[in-house]
């Protein structure tokens, strides 16, 4: 009887117990996580891309508006006598020009005011029948604190009776508040979608493990380590999640681009402040990467915990 053609024994005659292979090449066919997982991940990533882009656009919108408006105030003087309005406006300009905080002062011309009001008041805006207040635009050297605005207001009141000062940013406080709420909503949506992604991967990983339980047991009994088994499954998760994430990013970015075009067509000053900067696009590009990492971490934890129940 010939000796079977066994591989050579190690030098010391001990059994070959090598360190576990780093990868797990061709140990198993690729276990499928479930046919729908890449598509589910694609949809969820697309939602996150849209939510992230929306949140960033709202942040930009609020920041731009805040920057523009925070360093400006409007002075309003209500003067029923049209003959005195010009003098009142000049008095306001004179009072403000000496102040350290003021950069430029401009009396809004009556024609400009009339043009602004005409869509609402019709010809009445120019007839002189309606008393139109004097408006003075004031650009400040920096963003002013409420106390500084109040100090300007007090100084004006003593020199120009009836003058009222409005910090422009105050007009938009409710808008900022709404924009802030929308940003939190976008963040919340991202969190919920991340949880949904993790849950979908968790279920798929458990199903895949149950489907291949016999094979996993065989690999264990032949000396396979948990790390090798996890490696086999993570390879599949990586492929399927990467495909889903890439597809979702394309869909989400396409939707964001289309929405951007729609808003750009509005030609509104406020909407144009909500554009996405290159750094924002970079942040959006991180979404699929984060999605894949989340899927990998979830699958790894799920499989490791399930393997711990096996001997």
């Amino acid at each position, binding site marked *: *009887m*010939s*000796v*079977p*053609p*066994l*591989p050579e*024994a190690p030098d010391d005659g001990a*059994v*070959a*117990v*090598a*360190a*576990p*292979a*780093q990868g*797990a*090449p*061709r*140990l*198993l*066919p690729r276990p499928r996580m479930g046919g729908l997982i890449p598509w589910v991940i694609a949809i969820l990533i697309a939602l996150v891309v849209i939510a992230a882009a929306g949140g960033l656009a709202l942040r930009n919108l609020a920041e731009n508006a805040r920057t523009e408006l925070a360093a400006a105030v409007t002075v309003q003087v209500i003067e029923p006598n049209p003959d005195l309005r010009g003098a009142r406006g000049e008095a306001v300009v004179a009072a403000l020009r000496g102040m350290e905080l003021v950069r430029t002062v401009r009396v809004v011309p009556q024609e400009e005011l009339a043009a602004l009001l005409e869509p609402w008041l019709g010809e009445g805006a120019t007839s002189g029948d309606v008393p139109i207040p004097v408006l003075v635009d004031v650009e400040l050297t920096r963003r002013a604190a409420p106390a500084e605005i109040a100090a300007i207001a007090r100084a004006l009141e003593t020199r120009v009776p009836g003058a009222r000062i409005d910090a422009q940013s105050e007009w938009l406080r409710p808008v900022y508040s709404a924009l802030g709420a929308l940003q939190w909503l976008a963040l919340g949506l991202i969190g919920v979608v991340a949880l949904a992604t993790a849950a979908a991967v968790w279920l798929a990983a458990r199903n895949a493990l149950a489907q291949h339980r*016999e*094979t996993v*047991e*065989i*690999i*264990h*009994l*032949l*000396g*396979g*380590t*948990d790390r*090798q088994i996890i490696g086999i499954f993570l390879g599949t998760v990586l492929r399927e999640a990467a495909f889903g994430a890439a597809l979702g990013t394309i869909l989400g970015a396409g939707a964001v681009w289309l929405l951007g075009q729609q808003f750009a067509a509005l030609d509104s000053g406020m909407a144009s402040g909500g554009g996405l900067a290159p750094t924002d696009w970079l942040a959006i590009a991180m979404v699929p990467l984060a999605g894949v990492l989340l899927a990998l971490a979830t699958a790894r934890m799920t499989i490791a915990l399930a393997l*711990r129940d096996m*001997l």
Partner: protein
Amino acid sequence: MNERGAEIVKFDNVGLRYGTDPEVLSNLSFTLYPGSFYFLTGASGAGKTSLLKLLYLAQRPSRGAIRMFGQDVMTMPRERLPDLRRRLGVVFQNFRLVPHLTAFDNVALPLRLAGADEARIIKAVSDMLEWVGLAHRAQAIPATMSGGEQQRVAIARAVIARPRMLIADEPTGNVDPEMALKLLRLFEALNNRVGTTVVVATHDVHLLKKVPDSLIMRLNKGQLSDPTGALRYPPRPAAAPRAGDPA
């Protein structure tokens, strides 16, 4: 005692029960020595497969103590079990081939799990398949193979990594007498020339006579008896070279 000492496996008052059922194995105390050839016999339901599961570390006992290769299996963290399992070769009763893999890849599995390089794997597996007469079936998947072919693949997989201990559950049940004898000679060759400890569970009393120096452990309702002194202390010496074997 280290693994080169006098024992490969030591059971001390081991019992095994599944759930809350009565014990299927009771008060097992025995020692397996390097280079010995053991037959494990007993009627169906006597507990042979349960005992083999303890030996190939698919199960921990409900009570008692087991040492393998000098290490305490009962308290060993599961992360260290793969190291012990790689010293074992197992022929499962129902073969347990990986259904998606070819005969070649099934046989290669222990070497791949141990991190062997691919060139060594290709050579060793090709030679082994040739030896068990399945070279022409290397690319076949188990579902397309006969019971005998699957059994030979399972045996090739069990011995490919030169295990320190070979455990076989009814290894000749699905092959013809000629192949059964050939496989038995393979186990003997491993036992005699490589020093592998062999444990073969079988119903086949004729098989026992074909390995003259073998020791017999008999299980009856979960209890061991010892018709050939396999379990006595001090132990019999390891299997001596047979007449006619080259020095």
